[in-house]
């Protein structure tokens, strides 16, 4: 898939290892747009290469937590206006990696770059999507092109029916634990198999989002009927899926049978420090449900099915951040938010804040947090002397109930 998409974007036949100059189909930048706009001006051009191919959401610290964030947001709004960028999502929309697919910007076969390391999320819809830095994004804004090394591809086949309360998050944590944090560094990772076929686009997004945590340049799932259905009503544009050939070559093939998988958890302070939830004995002070990894309606519903009619532990703060306003509205309409709030959850507006220690929900020294997010590095949630565990929405919800890290099976 990677070779096909990069070949199409660079208008040539490509092999892994080739360096190509590729035309970008879509570029995404969030709060770092302020810094990017300054670098863009240093390069020289008056206008961005194509304002219709740039999407800018404000999501990392929304609404602004203080004056410096507010000034940053102001620069972004001015840049958007000056450059006539029509696809701008101010603080009311949600997290970039949820908003772009929802609003129909992500289409199969596209080459997408984003100035965010979890950009591979868009691969769930059959796109090649890679994270880049600020300077590079300024160059893309100026030229619409980027040099890329064509990555070797890995194929991860996931088969078997998942046991109850075990989800896509447990699968990807299990895979990262085995392959390690650099197990797919520079590689394009394709996920397939009957388990992936049954997954919603949301489940596929979990896999692709966290492929970044094993170093992948892109994580992808082939286009199928589920993709087509998801895109209906979200985009009227034509698109050209580029799935792999039947006889495609992969540098590495991994098979994972998930029929007997138990709930997984990443322990402090690396994402590949993975074990079974039942092996961990720790009290928690905060539980975070949401983020670009697990903040979709199905995740909130899973948590609500556990918390409905119950009360979370008095010693726990449960923060819920729906990934987007669309998710929040659906959750409101279906009564999910009522169930969560009644159980003791604190609902935050859709934004990234706590996940990177930027806004709300910071931890204190000595505190322990369980989160449905994707990264648990030391200091990630604003305090270097706090511990962060990563797990599925079900594990987060059950742990909020008991006040300690708890296996969700049987609940």
């Amino acid at each position, binding site marked *: 898939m990677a070779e096909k998409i990069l070949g199409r974007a660079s208008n040539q036949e490509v092999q892994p290892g080739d360096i190509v100059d590729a035309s970008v189909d879509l570029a995404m930048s969030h709060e770092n747009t302020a*810094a990017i706009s300054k*670098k863009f001006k240093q390069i020289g051009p008056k206008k961005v290469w194509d304002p219709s191919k740039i999407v800018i959401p404000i999501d990392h610290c929304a609404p602004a937590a*203080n004056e410096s964030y507010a000034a940053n947001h102001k620069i972004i709004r001015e840049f958007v206006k000056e450059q006539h960028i029509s696809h701008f999502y101010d603080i009311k929309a949600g997290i970039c990696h949820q908003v772009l697919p929802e609003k129909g910007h992500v289409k199969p076969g596209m080459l997408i770059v984003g100035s965010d390391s979890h950009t591979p999320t868009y691969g769930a819809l059959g796109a090649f999507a890679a994270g880049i*830095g600020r300077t590079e994004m300024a160059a893309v804004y100026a030229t619409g092109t980027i040099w890329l090394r064509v990555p070797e591809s890995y194929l991860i086949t996931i088969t078997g029916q998942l046991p109850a309360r075990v989800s896509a998050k447990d699968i990807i944590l299990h895979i990262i634990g085995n392959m390690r944090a650099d197990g797919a*560094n520079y590689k394009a990772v394709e996920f397939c198999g009957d388990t992936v076929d049954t997954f919603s686009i949301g489940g596929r997004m979990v896999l692709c989002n966290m492929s970044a945590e094993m170093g992948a340049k892109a994580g992808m799932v082939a286009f199928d009927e589920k993709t087509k259905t998801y895109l209906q009503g979200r985009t009227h544009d034509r698109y050209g899926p580029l799935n792999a050939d039947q006889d495609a070559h992969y540098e590495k093939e991994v098979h994972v049978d998930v029929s007997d998988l138990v709930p997984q958890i990443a322990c402090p302070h690396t994402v590949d420090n993975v074990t079974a939830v039942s092996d961990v004995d720790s009290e928690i002070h905060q539980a975070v449900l949401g983020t670009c990894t697990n903040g979709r309606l199905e995740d909130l519903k899973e948590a609500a099915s556990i918390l409905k009619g119950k009360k979370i532990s008095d010693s726990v703060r449960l923060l819920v951040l729906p990934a987007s306003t669309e998710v929040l509205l659906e959750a409101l309409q279906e009564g999910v938010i009522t169930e969560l709030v009644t159980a003791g959850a604190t609902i935050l507006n859709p934004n990234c804040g706590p996940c990177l*220690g930027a806004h709300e929900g910071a931890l204190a020294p000595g505190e322990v947090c369980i989160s449905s997010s994707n*990264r648990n590095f*030391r*200091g990630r949630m604003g305090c270097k002397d706090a511990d962060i565990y990563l797990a599925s929405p079900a594990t987060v919800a059950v742990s909020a109930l008991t006040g300690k890290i708890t296996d969700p099976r049987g609940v």
Partner: protein
Amino acid sequence: MKGRVFKYGDDVNTDVIFPGKYTYTISDPKEMAQHALEDLDPDFTKKVKKGDIIVAGKYFGCGSSREQAVTCLKEAGISVIIAQSFARIYYRNCINSGLPPLVLDDTSEFSDGDEIAIDVETGKIENVTSGKTYTVTPLPPFVMEIISDGGLIPHLKKVLSHEP
């Protein structure tokens, strides 16, 4: 170029190089430098001198795409980063910021404080303290050009100004 070694291990991530809490509150590179490696080596900013070199294990710079994790080290005085491997976004950010990233298969023979001399063009590394020499694959010419121009912004400025 010559410098002293700051030695670190595997998987040095962007959160310990430059904490996320500062990503949108600090925009001045000099101020970024004051927080470099804050959560890994609190003494780094006190000890680092212009020209010093980071030598690390595998997967240096994993995590976020935040470029400040490169900017803060460059601004603090770091002239080269040698590691057994780099996370891919970090590697590109180094090139685009004009800070050469060199890949050496085994960095275990280097110690904190070693004096080393590097020729980035040829890939020759001499550990003056231990007397040992090493050769790494030099960076491709088009990457070297970006680095010699001082990073992607000055490079593009140069390229675009030459276009008709």
